[in-house]
Every structure is written in structure tokens, then in C-alpha cells.
């Protein structure tokens, strides 16, 4: 392997001097993503402006056997964009054009660095928006969303990034530029898009993304319901879903999360609530009106002590302000915290929340819960104080134990933040060796050299030579212990 720094001269001729960073101080601005506990200074950072430049960088890496890592806005929460010490970090922040806002076809083609919210802003005057709305949408990039298959509060009704991407231009780990899908659906062949979205930058770099635009809803109604405890709030969620109502979003916050949000943004939630739900419905006016009344009734029937209905956009924004600022707000009540991301079947919510509370009581580690209740996607915020010896380690343990709880209930170790560097070691708890081996076949098909974001997603790298013939030599029936029949 050539030293990545050795590529600097070659890349300067392709990208220009300003787009190749080698200065130690400047390199360090890229040492982590949103998960600041992992830090690695990259050997080299490049800021390409075109697909051709990205391809040239990747080709240079491939030829030299140097790893590369794509980075969008660096808001990822699993260390997915954590640089490689001997690798090139390819940053897309200089690729921010909406190339084609194609309203008649309900599509947009964007460069990967385009900020999620900016796309919606451009489409809005035409009565359209881009539906996946991660809470980080003011800063995160579409390329990062594609890599993480990002979700958001409204994904309960509208689906995740994977349901909204219809085409990608990809620079493969060999440096080839290929088009996968387009504006029309169902390109013939394997659903490579399905594999690429959510692959966390390990199968290549997206240089153009074609997405579906969604018609802005005619009506939106939002309520804030306060409950004495999370059990009853959870019951309300189940009742709403069971009634066949499909809200655009159902979000829950528990007492500690409410306390933090109040301290930070004074959102004025009902005082003394053990849990609040934000329930939002959108769609055609008559449908929303009818179903909203039903949702409100079900909240009350499940034990809501207070239900507020947003009278206007300003009040709706206030409801959401508490929710959207919750992660950051936790900083007000704790010097350190871990944002966990796990999933349970929605019907298991009350039980799992109780077990989390028990875990918290047993360990003395506080846990604030704020999450996408409609699809069972938990975001426990595990609080700790580094000044207290051993507390951060205990917080880590609690955070890990919560994932085990999720798996015990048939859930997942990540609903939207991805595996990245952080959760690779948890993958074997959810998938066995054969499952992981099969996923690695996909990896090897795209990236036989393992240079595209290596060290992420998988706990152990796989060599991509010819496949180990472990089932070729032994006779299947000999293995099964019945060979003596013959």
C-alpha cells in the first residue's frame, strides 16, 4: 500500500491545490463525525467538485490500494464517516447543486452534498417537498442520507430514504462511473439501488441522486397529548395504529426528556407529564379531520390528562421545537450522554420502556427517552458525568444492554443511525456468521479490494479472493451424519 499522502501531488493536478488538504491543523477539522468519541485524523482530505474528479480520486486510491471514506456533512451518529488514518477522506460539501427540479415527473436530481432541507425549500413553491426528514435535516446531506438510509419523524407514513431514491450515479470502488436506476422505476436487473441505499459508503460513492418528490399535503393537524406515564402513552400509540389510522408521525418523550427540553427551549409542555405524545396527521382535508378526531379520542381513552391541538403553524412549530431540540437539550441536564438508536416492535414499547427504567434504577444511570414511537424506533439518551469515575463506562454498558433488550424483543440494533464504526461489534448479536458472510458477498461484488470505507459495518473484514469452498469438499450428507447410507 502506498502512503495516502503520496497521492497528494497527483490529486492536486486533478483537483487544484485548494481542493487537496494536507495541513495537519485543517485535517483535524475532519477527525470525527457526529459521534465525537471516535477520532482519527485522515491522511488526506479532498474536496472534489465533479463526478469526474471523484472518479479520478477513487481511481488513484484503487491503483495505490489506499482506502477512502466519503463524507457529507459529518452529522452521522455511528462513526460512519470516521476517517481512515492512512486513507483519503472525500468530502462532498463542494457538490451542492440541485441539478434538475423536475416537477412534472415528480423527481429531482441532486449532487450528493445538497442539504436535505434545501431540496425541500426549492420544491416547496411548486407544491412539493422531499419526504424523508431526519431531525438533522438543516445540515445533513442527501448523500449521507442515502448512505445511512435515513429516516425521520414522518417516515412512519412516508417511508425511509430507500423508498424515495429512484436513481444513483455511483463511482464504484474501482473508480468507474455507473448509472443505477433513473427517474423511471424498476430498471431491469438486480435491485442494486436497494443494496446501495443504507450501505454506509462501503459500496462506492454516490455522485448524483435521483429522488422522488412528494406533493405537499392539503391539510396538517397536530396534537400534543400528556400522559401520566409511558405505559399509557404507549397504549395510545397502539390504539391509534390498531384503529387503522396512519399518522404522519407519532413521537414520544418521557419525563426526563421533557425536563431537558423545557430547560433548553421552554416549549411549555403540560407540567408534570410522565410522557407526551406528538401526533401529526396530514393529507386531504376531510380525511385528516375525521382521523384526527379519532386519534384525539383514542389518546383521551388511553388516559391522556391533557390534549392540546395546534391552532396554527406557530403552535405546531412549538410542539415540534421541544421534540427536535431534545438531543441537544439533554446537554442541559447532563454533562455527557450517549444517543442510542434501537428498534422494537411497537407493541413491545411499554414493556421495553419499563425494562429500561429498571435498568436505569439498578445502575443509577439516568436514561431519557425521546423517540419515533409509531415505528418503535427508540432513542434512549444515556446520561453520564465524566467527572464521576467509572460512570461513562457504566453508561456504555447500559447503552449496550438496551440493544440487547431490543434484540430480545425481535428488534434491531439500529433504526436509522447506522452501524458505522460504533456498532460493528454488535452485528454478530443480530446476525450469525453465515448472514454476515452473505452480506460480505455483496461487499466483495462491489469492492473486492475493501478500500471503500473499510472497518465499518462488519465486525471482521472478509478477504474477497475466491470463496472458501467449505461446502464443496465435504459431502452434504456426510456432514449431516447420514453418509453411511451409501
Amino acid at each position, binding site marked *: 500500500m502506498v502512503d495516502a499522502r503520496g497521492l497528494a501531488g497527483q490529486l492536486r493536478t486533478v483537483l487544484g491545490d485548494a481542493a487537496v488538504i494536507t495541513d495537519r491543523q485543517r485535517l483535524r477539522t475532519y477527525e470525527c463525525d457526529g459521534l465525537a468519541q471516535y477520532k482519527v485524523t485522515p491522511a488526506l482530505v479532498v474536496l472534489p467538485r465533479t463526478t469526474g474528479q471523484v472518479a479520478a480520486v477513487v481511481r488513484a486510491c484503487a491503483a495505490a490500494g489506499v482506502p477512502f471514506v466519503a463524507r457529507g456533512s459529518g452529522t452521522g451518529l455511528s462513526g460512519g464517516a470516521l476517517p481512515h488514518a492512512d486513507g483519503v477522506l472525500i468530502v462532498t460539501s463542494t457538490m451542492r447543486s440541485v441539478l434538475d427540479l423536475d416537477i*412534472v415527473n415528480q423527481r429531482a436530481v441532486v449532487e450528493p452534498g445538497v442539504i436535505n432541507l434545501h431540496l425541500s425549500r426549492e420544491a416547496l413553491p411548486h407544491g412539493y417537498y422531499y419526504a424523508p426528514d431526519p431531525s438533522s435535516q438543516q445540515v445533513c446531506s442527501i448523500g449521507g442520507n442515502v448512505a445511512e438510509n435515513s429516516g425521520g419523524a414522518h417516515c412512519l407514513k412516508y417511508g425511509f430514504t430507500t423508498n424515495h431514491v429512484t436513481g444513483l450515479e455511483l463511482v464504484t470502488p474501482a473508480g468507474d462511473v455507473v448509472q443505477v436506476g433513473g427517474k423511471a422505476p424498476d430498471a431491469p436487473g438486480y*435491485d442494486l439501488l436497494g*443494496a446501495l441505499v443504507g450501505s454506509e459508503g462501503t459500496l462506492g460513492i454516490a455522485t448524483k441522486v435521483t429522488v422522488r418528490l412528494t406533493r405537499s*399535503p392539503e391539510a396538517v393537524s397536530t396534537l400534543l397529548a400528556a400522559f401520566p406515564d409511558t405505559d399509557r402513552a404507549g397504549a395510545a400509540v397502539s390504539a391509534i395504529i390498531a384503529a387503522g389510522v396512519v399518522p404522519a408521525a407519532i413521537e414520544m418523550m418521557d419525563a426526563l426528556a421533557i425536563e431537558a427540553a423545557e430547560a433548553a427551549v421552554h416549549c411549555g409542555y403540560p407540567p408534570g407529564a410522565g410522557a407526551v405524545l406528538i401526533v401529526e396527521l396530514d393529507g386531504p382535508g376531510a380525511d385528516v379531520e375525521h382521523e384526527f378526531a379519532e386519534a384525539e379520542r383514542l389518546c383521551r381513552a388511553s388516559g391522556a390528562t391533557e390534549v392540546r391541538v395546534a391552532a396554527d403553524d406557530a403552535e405546531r412549530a412549538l410542539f415540534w421545537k421541544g421534540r427536535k431540540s431534545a438531543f441537544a437539550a439533554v446537554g442541559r441536564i447532563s454533562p455527557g450522554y450517549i444517543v442510542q438508536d434501537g428498534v422494537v416492535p*411497537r407493541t413491545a414499547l411499554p414493556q421495553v420502556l419499563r425494562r429500561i427504567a429498571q435498568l436505569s434504577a439498578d445502575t443509577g444511570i439516568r436514561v431519557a427517552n425521546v423517540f419515533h414511537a409509531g415505528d*418503535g424506533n427508540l432513542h434512549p439518551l444515556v446520561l453520564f458525568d465524566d467527572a464521576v469515575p467509572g460512570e461513562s463506562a457504566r453508561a456504555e454498558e447500559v447503552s449496550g444492554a438496551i440493544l440487547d433488550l431490543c434484540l430480545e424483543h425481535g428488534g434491531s440494533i439500529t433504526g436509522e443511525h447506522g452501524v458505522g464504526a460504533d456498532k460493528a461489534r454488535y*452485528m454478530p448479536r443480530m446476525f450469525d456468521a453465515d448472514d*454476515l458472510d452473505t452480506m460480505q458477498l455483496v461487499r466483495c461484488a*462491489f469492492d473486492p479490494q475493501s478500500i471503500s470505507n473499510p472497518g465499518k459495518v462488519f465486525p471482521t473484514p472478509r478477504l474477497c479472493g475466491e470463496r472458501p469452498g467449505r461446502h464443496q469438499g465435504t459431502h452434504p450428507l456426510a456432514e449431516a451424519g447420514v453418509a453411511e447410507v451409501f
Partner: protein
Amino acid sequence: MGDVVLQELRLATDDHAAAAGPADTVDGMPARWVASPGSTAETSAVMRVAAVHDLAVVVRGAGNRLTWGAPPERCDLLVDSTRMDAVVEHASGDLVVVVQAGCRLDVLQQRLAGAGQWLAVDPPRPGTVGGTVAAALSGPTRLAHGAVRDLVIGMTMVRADGVVAHSGGKVVKNVAGYDVGKLLTGSYGTLGVITEVAFRLHPLPKARSWVSLPRHSAAAVHEALQRVVHSQLVPGAVELDRAADGSATLTVQLEGVAPGVLARTAAALELLGPSATAGSRPPGWWGIQPAGTGEVLLKVTHELAGLPHLLTALDAAAARHRLAAHVRGSVAVGSVLVGLRAAEGGNRVGPAALGPDEVAGLVADLRQRAASFGGSVVVLDGPRVVKESLDVWGPVGAIDLMRSVKHRFDPARLLAPGRFVGGI
């Protein structure tokens, strides 16, 4: 060696394997054995037998669409999934079902309907869950609920080497690991045997209505479609049915709560003008393929605004090659099926008389114009002589990556070799 293979297959399947009979063919090609595993473990054992003896394997569900795609180069073993027909788990509160691949779709739907739910790949059919997923077939309500690939949340598959692998899970939201299930969806049995699928479900709509509009030119169809898609009707489906003479009906399905459907039905009638009519039942052609067995069936995709260009190109090509083209499909999604017959007044009559040259000519013309409508043209089904006269899948983007995926999953090319794109 034949006896040995059969004996091994019987051992692998608890005696559910036999020499192939006259009905055990794939697109006219006879298989040598049929094995019917009753579980994922048995499927794994069967695939290991196939791997050791270098048997080419074609998976068969109900067998209703076994002729779709290119004919496989060889077929030694049919792996029949229909003994794996259990609904493993229906978590109704979570709107999730886990079902074995050989379960019939209509049986599953009936079971789910008891809980007021359904798998949104309408309408109910005798085909299997596995066949539906492997061929990525969607019906009209794909517009509202997504294609099959959007409904699959977890999968168990058996690889060509017999290894069993899971991906996804049974929660709707999940980004742990690669979504291998999406790769298998639409893979026509060329990457692995699907044995179990977890789906997200939807509540059955409480009310539905259908608003239909007759239109007689490509331009008028386009104009009506654009009105609908940019409106606030939020249709569950928008289907076009267009006969070879150009007479067409555009039908909008509205679904939801009764007061909402009522209001939107009125809004749709107003939007579409006096020739539109509303009904409480779908038109007779709803969700039915526009070609019978033995006829030629194309799948054509398009950009929404590419529809009139597609229809114009199709009309021109049909006239030139003396064929009659019936278009039916989800025009607000951008995916239609086209049934081809010999044109009346031509020198051939009836489906059997469809000439391979004419079909190949039409397909070539249409592919040449594909840029004008922004999509692709695939020959899903047709007489073997027709399919052999052309490339059924047509030009494919990113084909090298696809070959590479196939090579990693099935290096010995045992799974339906030659069935898929680029001879995969």
C-alpha cells in the same frame, strides 16, 4: 448417478423428491428431478445436493409465471416451494407478517383480512409469496403503498452452496447491515432460494371508490394524468387501460375513511370534468394482465410525463409491424404492461400466429425510442420462439456490477442459468 441423486434428494426432503413428470418443465424444458423441501433446513440440504452434483436449479412456486424471463440454459432440478406454506407469525398489532415462501397469496390475504389487514400487492392471486417476491410483481396500489421491494422487511434465503442467510428482521424500521432482501426481490431465482419473508402490512381501507375517465388520444390521457398526479386527491392507484385502437380509460382509485373518500370522489369528478364517472367497484380489467398465456407480454417503464411519447412510439411500432398493442398499468408510477396480438386484417390471426420477427421489430423500435419516454422495455412472457429471437431484458445499466453480484452468490451458475439480464 441418477439414482444416487434421487436418493440424496429424498433424504434431504424427508422423502419429498421424485423423478420429474411430464408437467415438470420450465418453458418447455424438462427437468430431471423435483424436490419439495418442507423447511429452510431441508431447502439447504437440497441445495447442497445440487451443489455437489452440479445440478442446475429452477425454483418453482405455483408455477404460474415460470415462463417469465429468458428460458434457463439448463434445468436439472425443480425446487418446489409449495410445501413451505405456513404463516409463521402474524403480529397484527405491529402490522407485520412472517410467511413461508410457498404460501399462496390469496390464502395469506384471506388470513390477514380477518385482522382487517392486507399485504398491499393486490389483488389476491393463486401465485405464491416467493414467486411474487422473486418476480417483483406489484398491482395497482403500488402507487400508495410501494412496490413489493418496499413491503419486504426481512428475508431468509438459501444460497447456491446451501448456506442459509437472513437479512433485515421483523421490524419496519431497521438499517442494520445490507438489505440483501432487496437484491433477492426481482432476482427471478438466480441469486438464492427465498424460503421465508417478513412483510409490513397495511390496514384494509375502510372505504374505496373508483373514478373513471374515457380518453381517446395520447395527449388527452397525458393531460388527465398530469392533473391527477399534481392534485390533492392522494389516489391509492391510477391505472390506464388502453385498447389497440387508442380508446382508453384512466381510472383513479380513492381509498381511506368514508368521509374522506366521499369528498375526494366529488373532487375527482370535478377535476376530471363531465365525462368522468364514479363507481363503488373497480372496472372489470382492474389488476388483470393484458395478455393471456402464450401471448406476448411486455413490461414498459416510463417517466410520468413520458407517457404520451411512449404511447405514440408504441402506436407507430405496432402499425409498422402489424401488431395490436393493449396497454394496461400504473401510469402514475410509470410502469405498464403491454399485451401484443397480431393485428386484425394482418395475414396471421390468433395468439399462436404471433410472428417472432414482428415482435422483435416492435421491441427494437420501442427500445430505440426509449429515451423519449425515459424508461425500459422488457419482454416478460411470450412463446419461446419469440423470446429466442430477441434479448428479452434489453440493455441494462450497471451490468458489470450485476454480473459481479451473481458471481459472488452463485459462482458455478447453478441457479436458473441464463434466465436473467445479460445472460446471468
